[in-house]
């Protein structure tokens, strides 16, 4: 079982997060679970594609896949590899989680998927070659592109992501300080003139006092 396990099922954005999304439907379509109008010409319940045959096909596929995959149980992932895996995305494109904590919700097996495991195995191999964490991450970026990052790198365009929040705070603070200074120097509103003015001013003052002493 290679990518099949990953893309099948309801895998999209942490599984259910995008449960309403079109991609979940497409994943379902791909897995044969959903047969909307488009697939009616090849109905899922056609006699040529029975459930038993599908299962048999899947099992045959799995056996073939197992034959050429080095089988490693869960315990084989070293804690160090898992730790580094937390900084690498699971590249199955189905779960949106990190390789280190891929739980693949919604799938038949909600543990680390094969892609995540393969990534961790690769990390283990790199660790065996005495590569540093940064070198390993760089190697993965070279292989998959910048999509493998879990958080933007603090260099290049990724730095923009990190500067943005600081920029907002600085600009926001500047605006607040400016506004406070401007408002503290604002002259009080001129008293209204006219025959009923004194009473009106007094009423307004009273209303204001009422409002401001409420709490």
């Amino acid at each position, binding site marked *: 079982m290679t990518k099949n396990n990953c893309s099948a099922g309801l895998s999209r954005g942490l*599984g259910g997060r995008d449960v309403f999304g079109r991609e979940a439907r497409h994943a379902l379509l791909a897995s044969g679970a959903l047969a909307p109008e488009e697939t009616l010409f090849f109905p899922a319940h056609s006699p040529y594609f029975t459930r038993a045959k599908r299962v048999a096909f899947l099992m045959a596929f799995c056996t073939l896949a197992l034959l050429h995959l080095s089988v490693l149980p869960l315990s084989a992932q070293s804690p160090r590899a898992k730790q580094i895996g937390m900084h690498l995305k699971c590249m199955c494109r189905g779960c949106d989680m990190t390789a280190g904590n891929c739980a693949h919700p*919604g799938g038949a097996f909600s*543990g680390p998927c094969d892609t995540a495991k393969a990534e961790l195995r690769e990390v283990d191999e790199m660790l065996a070659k005495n590569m540093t964490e940064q070198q390993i991450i760089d190697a993965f970026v070279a292989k998959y592109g910048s999509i493998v990052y*879990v958080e*933007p790198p603090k260099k290049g*365009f990724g730095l923009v992501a990190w500067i943005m929040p600081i920029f907002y705070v600085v600009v*926001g603070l500047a605006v*607040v300080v400016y506004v406070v200074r401007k408002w503290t120097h604002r002259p009080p509103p001129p008293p209204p003139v006219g025959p009923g003015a004194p009473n009106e001013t007094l009423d307004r003052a009273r209303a204001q006092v009422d409002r*401001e002493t*409420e709490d």
Partner: protein
Amino acid sequence: MDVFGSFSLLLAFVCAVYAFVGGIAAIRTRHPLLVKSARQAGMATCALIFLATFCVEYLFFTDNFSMAYVVSHSNRDLSTFYKIAALWAGQEGSLLFWSTLLSIYVLSVLIAYRNKNGELMPYVGVVLAGVQIFFLTLNNFVENPFKTLATVNAAGVLEPFTRLDGNGLNPLLQYPEMVIHPPNLYSGYTGFTIPFAFALAALLARYPGEKWIHLTRKWTMVAWCFQSLGILLGAHWAYAVLGWGGYWGWDPVENASLLPWLTGTAFLHSVMMQEKRGMMKVWNVWLVFCTFLLCILGTFLTRSGVVSSVHAFANSHIGPWFVGFICITIIVCFVSYFLNRDYLKSENQLDSMISRESSFLFNNLLFLVACIAVLSGTLFPVFSEWFTSNRISVGAPFFNKVMIPIGLALLFLTGVGPLLAWRKTSADSLKRNFGWPLIVGLVGAFILYVAGYRDPFSNLCLFLCIFVFWTIVEEFYRGAKVIAARTGMSMMMAAHELSMRNTRRYGGYVVHFGMVLVFVGMAGAAFNADAQKAMNIGDSMKLGPYTLLLQSADTKVEKNYTAQRMIVEVLKDNKQIMLLYPEKRQFQGTEQAAGTMVAIYSTLREDLYVVYAGMDPEVNVPVIHAFLNPLVKWIWLGGVWVVMGTLLALMPNRRATLVIAGATEAAPAPPGTPALTSTTTLREGHD
């Protein structure tokens, strides 16, 4: 029934257009009959939308598998409970559901104010009809839920086609929370349309004073409450169903629901500035505009998948429609603002940097920064692809690093803000108000540190939580003491009386208290631990103070699914505490997709969260994944307090009953004994 539903949806569209055009004509001519007819068209629109929704539900309940939407989201064995929820399981239905919830608000507004605010209501009606037209366009012409199945027969002619059974509801949605989470969240999204409509209407009509704020205050609170509840229920659903051990993953769809909540919360606070001091009028109008736009943007992000994947955008028909609607709304807002901006002049001046006013400014600053930071982080992958043709993903660690400091600053203001006086706060009152909370907070943080909770952010957060909690306690205590002294009530009764006299203020404190609990829960995340093991029957694994022993496994067959169940014994200090039953459910009609049922042993101290991950595909042994999540329960408890606080704030103020001094023995006397008690209005409260 499908023709009937389809027709009522179309008729609703026609009515909405009439309400819009007729409303504009009514504003121009000021003809009372035209005003009335536009309003009634608005009401008819709502009624027709309800009818269409009823038809969809009817089709679900009658298992009508000639309907494409029913086939995709239901099957015969689906329980009644989930057939209701199937309405919002897919694109077409959820957009219809959006219209329905909006209609509930619109109808309530039109009926509640039918004889009031004659100057303003025609404008409100037009804005609301405009929003309804947009969603009805989608319902009718883009994502119509009343599509039937068709097949090509031997003669090459299309003919109707009925399936024997449907594909079933998405297994992830077959969970009680999924029945109540979307309605709550959508009620939040749609609810902000009402303050938006009133703000825009007041601006267009140049409606004098702060009336629109008074009118919409309760509507905003209702929407806010639904939004908060919706977000928390969604988090709980993610926690209990997805089985990855967390409740918030900074996923684009989650972020989309948080954005309007942040600006909405800012709005709820900044309107107080306008009510009390006549300031920030322009700001408030724009804040409510932004909240509405973010609601639409949130719906758009959720529904179109533009952020989750580059390909989803091309697949979705509705992306361009939403972009168009957002652009039109922005233009309308800008134009009406520039034409009428002179009407929004601020009245008062600010006296001091250390005052309630400036604390509101900082509160708004932080909420806005939080909102823009989340928004830009969510959209950053899209930007990075535009600028560098290289998609850089932004995951949870980024958001955690950015949002934790902002969240803590907000928590700090939660404690400080309400105790600063309007205009100017003296150093003396600062000492009086904050002395004890600071001391209690520091002592509490120190005890936690000694007890072994050692993480800088988490400790700071817990310190602030205790600090804020103590400021709230002191506020209630001070107020209650005065009432108790005057009336001879017990302190508890006096605190209750106090809250009822100024529901908005004390309801606000209760909401703040709820948020403190939520923050306590989030602080626990720093100490999360987990372990995963492929276990044979009889194997055990250790996690924190617990030992998990896999006792046995069984299979249970239900009507709609088959579950593989692991029976896990939980031991603490070699004593059995309980049995946990994590499950994996295989739903009918779906091949690969399976539902996870997490088993949680939840205490105030921590959650033991056990997932049966399935058979390890490599060694064919059940894999148990256990998480130890401290303090998570506090988040859900906080949610309950937030809702209770909002409900309190929605209640009208009780007038104070003043008991004449010296008549304390008469305190328990029933109300309405005029000889001893004189009913005097002490304060009008806020309303």
